[in-house]
């Protein structure tokens, strides 16, 4: 396309139908080639200034692999819009001495890493959604953390460490291991040194069969069966919507919330209850306060609230042995929400008093994966199974539990216990057959109940397997003791083994006519004292008995690290061997160092998508009233002024706290943060790094939409426009549904921050840091320089201002809807689906030629598109991939997509809109705003704008074909279509 300046036309090499490459020779100094993602038609439509601008980026120091242009690419200033570039941490000698290492020190690929549910995965399969168990050094307790980085590299040698209790670990020499003297590199460890180990291993978290566990249809049918209808009010719809909002209507076997649901169920089968009457719907858990807190955390993670109560109780029960009375403080956790009850009941949790009803372990768990079985029974055992205890300090009693039911339900009690026995057998654990225990008979108000008991066989091998792989959940004390018991039993085994060897040696030596006292002197050691050796020589019957060593209690006291359940264990062997393969590590890295090409991103604009429970039918008659109301509430256009009365101090807080600030002030719902990237806060922001001019501009503009391509649009989903039914359903989208999309950023404040720092960078860039750029607007500085650090903190403020701005607008939007429909916003289902910036630099880990590197990914007019599992994705979407909001022109339509499999090719970046094809100036001269308004009205789109010319600039004809752009990123696999939205009305500045 022709431009006013003659830019050089590049030559393109076709890589695929949607990828085109410009060689490094195109412009002097280019460090990497350029890759354009577009169809041939879109490529031809791009103006040559785009390629000039992107090649200027390719010149910048530290750039990795390629500079990218997305299919919506078009020229702006500095970087083209739709431009992506990532800069390497270790490039150009600008790493600060204070850099926090993510030295790649690694573990063998098969190393098992335990997650917080007590399930393990080989490290090579670990992803960012997995929470790791780690040790908090300060409090010496266990804590749950998410990995910041998952690193991988090749290695030539590997070290194998074996401990006394039989633990093995394979790692590289430079991998640190926790010892009594702190972290020590594996290569520096010596035999007999003690390292931290855990007795608990868990079971593998692997899905062999991918099954649907919950679907909307199942829920509907289940409610029909229970007689829950919409006849009186709309109970059924409310329950469905409540679950939809939490994305719980579609759950597959690999969903990361399923482990939580199974654990909750297991505990309810033990010490919990579901009460569902016309008056109350309560899910209750009973236990120790700390354990209930852990349960509550999981309940919260599913999106529900609950409260823990403590009250003194006096109990009196009649047993076969007589009347027993006692006082205690009862702690309970109550969750009052019918939808979670329906969900748990659908999954097979009994409703009502458990002694009075018949139930079994749900079939899908019995027939399910091993990890499901383990979670269910471990949570059940957390409530019901006796704690690990020894009868003489060395040998453990058989852990037992019992089930009580009314006499008439005797068979049901036995069947349930047999289900548990079956599961244990599947997990490789032997039981003593269930027995009816008279002593458990109980005479309550409902009549006589009878009890059955199941015990876990107490032989060492069986108990080690049980405590190390199954154990308990939701019971910290028993989990800890179980893990310690597992190590202790392994320790006993090791002692026995050693004694067996000594015994055999002693006998051999004696039969070789040795002197008994000399043999004793030779063989005496920690595990085998004089008496033992004499006894071995003169009485060789049976296996060596255990005595004279630490009892369980002493063992825990002397070896446990704090109350973590971890113990120190001696290294008995260190072996180094040749190795040719990949090693892995999880790391918690701090901020890293990089170039910040300032001009690439300034305004931190972004998109926010809101769903409703309204359909096009509901909204059509009110569309004009609603749009006008929105227009009045959300200031837009040239010089628009904030309606919010805040002072500079408030604004500084806002710039550090982002959307959280707005929520704190009452502008929005807490849940909005969970569906905003970064949780709505760039926590590295520092308001002392932004100028007074930026603050002055911000104070006057916060809560305004702006103009240009900033807009607020009401849209709907045309039947047939849902491309991924499963995901759409899960994300709460349905045909004919009304949604709202809006686009705005940090307004003048963000630009002021950028202008200020461009000038700062220009004054030091060449003289101090010897960096040259082709374009002054691309001024930059090393990240670890004072200037770079200051700007990074200031940019954080820009990101926060943009989050807060969109949050304030969402608040106004809810008000407008609520006034127009005379209903509360929550009744209208005005939930935020997602908020994502498309002008931002993001510190991310990426694999470059087999090596993991931390990069600062600059996206200008390009949306982050993360494939499932990445830690950048808010938790509720992590299993699916990140939602990608693509805003089209006001005449055509917009899209919701999801992070695609090939997104890592472009450092997880994709298109952000349809992209202009005609300049604003040209559009204004070619299109008449008033005529366009009439034409759009005729096509069913009502526009409210302050400016006819502004409207003309944004006409559909000024933009590329949105479908073509979306098809290009979909075909390239950068992101995949979920659904298309059609505009109904638009508020424009």
């Amino acid at each position, binding site marked *: *396309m*022709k*431009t*006013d*300046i003659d830019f050089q036309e590049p030559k393109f090499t076709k890589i695929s139908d949607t990828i085109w490459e410009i060689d490094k020779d195109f412009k002097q100094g280019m460090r990497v080639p350029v890759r354009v993602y577009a169809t041939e038609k879109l490529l031809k439509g791009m*103006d040559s*200034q785009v390629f000039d601008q992107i090649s200027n980026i390719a010149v910048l120091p530290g750039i990795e692999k390629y500079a990218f242009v997305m299919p919506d690419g*078009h*020229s*702006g*200033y*500095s970087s083209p*819009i739709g431009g992506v570039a990532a800069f390497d941490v270790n490039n150009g000698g600008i790493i600060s001495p204070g850099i926090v290492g993510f030295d790649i020190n690694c573990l063998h690929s098969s190393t098992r890493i335990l997650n917080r549910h007590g399930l393990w995965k080989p490290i090579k399969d670990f992803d960012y959604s997995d929470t790791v168990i780690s040790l908090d050094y300060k409090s010496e307790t266990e804590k749950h953390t998410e990995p910041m980085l998952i690193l991988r590299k090749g290695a030539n040698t590997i070290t194998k460490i074996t401990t006394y209790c039989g633990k093995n670990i394979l790692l590289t020499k430079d991998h640190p291991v926790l010892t009594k003297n702190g972290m020590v590199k594996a290569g520096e460890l010596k035999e007999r040194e003690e390292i931290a180990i855990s007795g608990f291993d868990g079971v593998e978290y692997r899905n062999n069969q991918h099954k649907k566990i919950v679907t909307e249809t199942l829920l509907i049918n289940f409610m029909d069966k229970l007689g829950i209808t919409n006849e009186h009010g709309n109970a059924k719809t409310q329950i469905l919507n409540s679950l939809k909002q939490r994305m719980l209507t579609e759950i597959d076997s690999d969903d990361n919330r399923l482990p939580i649901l199974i654990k909750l169920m297991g505990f309810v089968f033990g010490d919990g209850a579901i009460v569902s009457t016309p008056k109350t719907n309560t899910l209750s858990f009973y236990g120790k306060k700390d354990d209930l807190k852990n349960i509550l955390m999981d309940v919260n993670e599913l999106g529900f609230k609950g409260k823990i109560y403590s009250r003194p109780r006096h109990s009196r029960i009649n047993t076969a042995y007589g009347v027993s009375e006692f006082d205690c403080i009862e702690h309970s956790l109550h969750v009052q929400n019918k939808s979670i009850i329906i969900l748990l009941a659908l999954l097979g949790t009994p409703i009502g008093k458990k002694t009075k009803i018949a139930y079994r372990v749900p079939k899908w768990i019995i027939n399910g994966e091993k990890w499901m079985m383990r979670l269910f029974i471990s949570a059940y055992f957390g409530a019901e199974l006796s704690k690990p205890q020894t009868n003489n300090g060395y040998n453990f009693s058989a852990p037992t539990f019992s089930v009580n039911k009314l006499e008439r339900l005797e068979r049901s009690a036995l069947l349930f216990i047999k289900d548990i026995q079956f599961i244990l057998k599947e997990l490789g654990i032997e039981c003593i057959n269930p027995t009816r225990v008279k002593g458990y008979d109980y005479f309550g108000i409902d009549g006589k109940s009878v009890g059955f008991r199941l015990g876990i066989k107490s032989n060492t091998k069986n108990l080690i397997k049980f405590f190390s792989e199954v154990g308990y959940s939701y019971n910290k004390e028993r989990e800890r003791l179980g893990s310690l018991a597992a190590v202790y039993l392994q320790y006993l085994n090791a002692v026995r083994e050693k004694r067996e060897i000594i015994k055999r040696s002693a006998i051999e030596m004696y039969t070789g006519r040795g002197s008994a006292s000399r043999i004793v002197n030779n063989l005496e050691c920690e595990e085998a004292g004089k008496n033992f050796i004499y006894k071995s020589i003169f009485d060789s019957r049976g296996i060596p008995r255990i005595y004279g060593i630490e009892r369980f209690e002493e063992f825990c006291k002397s070896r446990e690290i704090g109350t973590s359940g971890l113990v120190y264990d001696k290294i008995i062997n260190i072996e180094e061997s040749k190795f040719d393969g990949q090693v892995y590590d999880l790391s918690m890295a701090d901020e890293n160092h990089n170039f910040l090409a300032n*001009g690439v991103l*300034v*305004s931190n604009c972004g998109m926010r998508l809101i769903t409703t429970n309204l359909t096009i039918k509901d909204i059509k008659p009110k569309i004009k009233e609603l749009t006008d109301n929105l227009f009045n509430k959300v200031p837009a*256009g*040239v*010089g*628009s*002024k904030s309606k919010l009365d805040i002072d500079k101090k408030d604004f500084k807080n806002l710039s550090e706290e982002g959307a959280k600030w707005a929520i704190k002030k009452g502008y929005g719902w807490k849940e909005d943060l969970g569906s905003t990237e970064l949780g709505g806060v760039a926590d590295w922001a520092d308001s002392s790094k932004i100028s007074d*001019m930026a603050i*002055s*501009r911000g*104070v*006057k*503009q916060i809560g305004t939409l*702006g*103009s*240009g*391509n900033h807009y607020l649009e009401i849209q709907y989903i045309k039947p047939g426009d849902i491309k991924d039914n499963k995901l759409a359903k899960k994300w709460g989208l349905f045909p004919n549904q009304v949604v709202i999309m809006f686009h705005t950023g940090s*307004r*003048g404040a963000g*630009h*002021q921050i*950028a*202008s200020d720092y*461009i*000038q700062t960078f*220009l004054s030091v860039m060449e003289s101090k840091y010897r960096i040259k750029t082709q*374009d*002054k*607007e691309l*001024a930059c500085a090393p990240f670890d320089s004072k200037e770079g650090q200051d700007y990074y903190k200031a940019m954080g403020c820009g990101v926060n201002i943009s989050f807060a701005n969109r949050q304030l607008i969402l608040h106004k939007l809810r008000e407008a809807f609520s006034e127009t429909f005379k209903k509360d916003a929550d009744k209208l289902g005005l939930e935020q689906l997602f908020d994502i910036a498309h002008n931002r630099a993001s510190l991310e880990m990426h694999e470059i030629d087999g090596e993991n590197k931390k990069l600062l990914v600059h996206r200008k*007019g390009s949306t982050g598109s993360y494939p499932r599992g990445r830690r950048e994705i808010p938790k509720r979407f992590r299993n699916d991939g990140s939602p990608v909001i693509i805003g089209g022109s006001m005449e055509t339509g917009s899209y919701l997509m999801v992070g695609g499999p090939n997104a890592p090719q472009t450092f997880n970046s994709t298109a952000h809109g349809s992209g*202009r*094809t*005609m*300049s*604003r*100036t*040209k559009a*204004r001269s070619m299109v008449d705003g008033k005529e366009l308004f009439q034409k759009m009205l005729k096509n069913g789109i009502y526009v409210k704008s*302050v*400016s*006819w*010319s*502004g409207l003309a*600039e944004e006409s559909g004809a000024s933009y590329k074909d949105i479908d073509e752009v979306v098809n290009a990123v979909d075909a390239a696999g950068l992101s995949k279509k979920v659904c298309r939205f059609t505009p109904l009305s638009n508020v424009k*500045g």
Partner: protein
Amino acid sequence: MGYKFLENLSIADVAFEVHGDNLEEVLEYAADALANTMIKNPTAINTRITREFEVTSKDLDLLLIRFLDRLIFYKDTEQLIFGNVDVKVENRLDSWTAYCTAKGEKLDPARHQFVVDVKAATMHLLKVQNKGGEWSARVVLDI
């Protein structure tokens, strides 16, 4: 002499070119172009409010950017649009200072035909130059 919008440059934003007999005119025409980018009928701007300010820079490009940024700042913080800007430039030692008197009024949707808001003046492709006695500059505004 005056300003001209460039139709085929930086299509997401707005680009213009100014020509003048001296540096003062370049700045003054650039101020007009800025006002005209935001409103369609700049002649409708009354000049009842005055703001006086000065900007300094060692570099002419930066001088122009700081000048435009200041006008944008008044628009964002006081909703002012200027119909007449008078500039005197002095070159002392190695730096340039522009003394400016900007006259205008508060933005009024009833009388000013809004076009599009300007967020910033950028340094992209920026060039303030004197060729054979004629001064010119090219500016890309961030929209």
